């Protein structure tokens, strides 16, 4: 072959290798992203969620109710983390997303059981995320009945055979039909904003570096805060447009009802948009080129998709993954949007998810301003 010159190929090859090595950030992402994905998909992501937090209201206080609790916990599907004495407390827990299930064992449960009257057990499930609820709900009946049978002995052993002892009544809250879109579409809003907002500010600033216009900007009497506000504001408007489009689609395409306050939704969205824009601003103080800015936003985006409760039930993830999730703005926004849209939660009820975003806004904003260089050094 005379058409191909080996030395020319080698020349290009060498040049590419040198450039690859120089671009440390790309190099780091090429190694870092697979590692991150391995960890997140391999360990954190759990499509068969277990140990979901559950509130138990035991109005019977009998050996039988204790058998049930034991059986439920042994199944590892649910962890009885709360034992509220009032229904209202339990309702609050499920609305704020602290528990996925409420189990109610009624009064006179054991009396009716012994009489063979098949007493009812009520299981209320937070069905906003249908996949989180399904595993536990599908096997709940069996777990309870076989758990009770095991503990029946002596003169009650006649109950151990025959038809199911209890009647499990399921109540799916917030998304009774178990429609996946109810969960995905509001969550998608958080992901769309996370992706576009931080990317756009980061790119808008690194673009000035790349094109050399930063030198001109820095030579002008522009203060860092003026720069930040000026760079962020236009994208807040774009963020609103995105919120608007998703909400319209949710209502008219997916028929998802908006139960809570639209105003509250807009307010928390504004907060979330600003947090993401500030992340973008912070990235721009680290990245030198637009490419690096994109890589950094991607680095933040991935855990936000996988560990925020968007794709997989948050409470079903291992504890360490939940801790990472706790540091991500999307985690709180997911709960806020789902809480407002599907559960009709109020600002007061959602406070525990609002203040972390406010805190992030302050910390990330301060960090970005602190890191922002007013010189070319």
């Amino acid at each position, binding site marked *: 072959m005379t058409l191909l010159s080996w030395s020319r190929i080698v020349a290009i090859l060498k040049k590419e290798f040198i450039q690859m090595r120089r671009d440390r950030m790309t190099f780091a992402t090429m190694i870092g992203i697979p590692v991150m994905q391995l960890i997140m998909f391999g360990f954190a992501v759990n499509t068969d969620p277990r140990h979901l937090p559950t509130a138990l209201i035991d109005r019977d206080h009998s050996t039988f109710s204790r058998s049930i609790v034991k059986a439920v916990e042994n199944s590892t599907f649910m962890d009885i983390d709360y034992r509220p004495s009032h229904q209202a407390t339990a309702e609050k827990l499920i609305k704020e997303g602290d528990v996925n299930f409420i189990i109610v064992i009624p009064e006179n449960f054991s009396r009716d059981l012994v009489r063979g009257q098949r007493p009812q057990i009520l299981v209320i499930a937070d069905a906003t995320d249908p996949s989180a609820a399904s595993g536990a709900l599908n096997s709940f009946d069996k777990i309870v009945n076989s758990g009770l049978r095991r503990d029946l002995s002596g003169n009650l052993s006649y109950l151990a055979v025959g038809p199911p002892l209890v009647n499990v009544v399921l109540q799916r809250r917030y998304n009774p039909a178990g429609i996946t879109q109810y969960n995905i579409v509001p969550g998608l809003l958080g992901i769309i904003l996370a992706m576009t907002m931080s990317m756009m500010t980061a790119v808008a600033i690194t673009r000035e570096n790349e*094109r*050399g*216009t*930063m*030198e*001109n900007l*820095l*030579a*002008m*009497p*522009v*203060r860092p805060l003026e720069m930040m506000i000026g760079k962020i504001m236009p994208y807040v408007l774009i963020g609103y447009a995105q919120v608007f489009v998703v909400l319209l689609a949710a209502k008219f395409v997916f028929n998802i009802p908006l139960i809570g306050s639209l105003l509250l939704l807009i307010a928390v969205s504004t907060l979330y948009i600003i947090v993401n824009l500030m992340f973008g601003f912070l990235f721009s103080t680290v990245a030198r080129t637009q490419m690096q800015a994109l890589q950094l936003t991607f680095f933040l985006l991935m855990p936000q998709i996988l560990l925020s409760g968007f794709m997989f039930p948050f409470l079903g993830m291992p504890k360490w993954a939940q801790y990472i999730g706790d540091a991500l703005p999307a985690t709180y926004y997911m709960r806020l949007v789902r809480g407002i849209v599907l559960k009709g939660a109020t600002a007061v009820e959602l406070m525990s998810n609002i203040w972390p975003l406010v805190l992030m806004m302050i910390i990330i904003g301060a960090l970005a301003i602190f890191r922002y260089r*007013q*010189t*070319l*050094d």
Partner: protein
Amino acid sequence: MMAAEMVIDVRGLTKIFDGRKVVDNFDLRVPKGSVYGFLGPNGSGKTTTIRMVCGLLIPDSGSGSCLGWDVLTQSENIKKKVGYMTQKFSLWEDLTIRENLNFVARVYDVPDLEHRVAETLEHLGLSARAHQLAGSLSGGWKQQLALAACMIHDPELLLLDEPTSGVDPKARREFWDNIHELADRGVTILVSTHYMDEAIQCDYIAYIAYGHKLIDAPYAEIISQVGLYTWRVEGAGLSQIARKLKENPQVEQVTRFGTALHVSGQDEAALQAAIAPWRDNPELHWYQQESGLEEAFIHLMNTTEDNFQ
């Protein structure tokens, strides 16, 4: 430098990049209303020095004032009164000419903005093309636009980093006329350039090489300070003479100027001895003359290269 008010007065400016002193212990005193030429070979630290003066780079050591404000702590104030034209085009290529000027004027809070921008466009002769994207201008026009933009807020000090590179002769002449007009009105101008015909338009010249200032004097005193002697010869067979002279260690520079040759050296007597073999040739005309700036600066570079590189 008399008791004139100093617009730039910095001492011991030093900038280190990757362990290398790019600007070393640099002093600069620029009197109000003067045109200060800043010369030096590529990579000598001109841009770096200008950036330190206007607060774009923090010096590793040194101190001083610019327009009466501290260069280290009050760059906020300095920036408002300085017009800085970067060496590389740094306006926004995706904005139109008018949008660029509007932006700059707005950032500096220029009063009567619209009028000022229209005036600038008029002056540039770009009124008809105000809607053209700045990125689509030719190189020289970009340069002129950048120059106009950095003057739009009537700065008291202009820092111009090679403002005329790539600009045609007519526009350059207009530029220099403009500079002298501004200086007459009390504006101070520090301008870096590689062109000798521009250097001679300056009131003062500072020459920097390898981060060190080699000379800093009023224009008229430069040549005598450098101490270089030059002979000019006209006639036939110059190429051969040039080749021979270049071999002589006493002759430092041999330069061709059209039909003439300039022969320069530091030692007056040795230079005379070097040219002696051709002095009596009737076909050649020898004159002793004052060395030019270019010769002086090349001499400065030759004598410093060994010390600093």
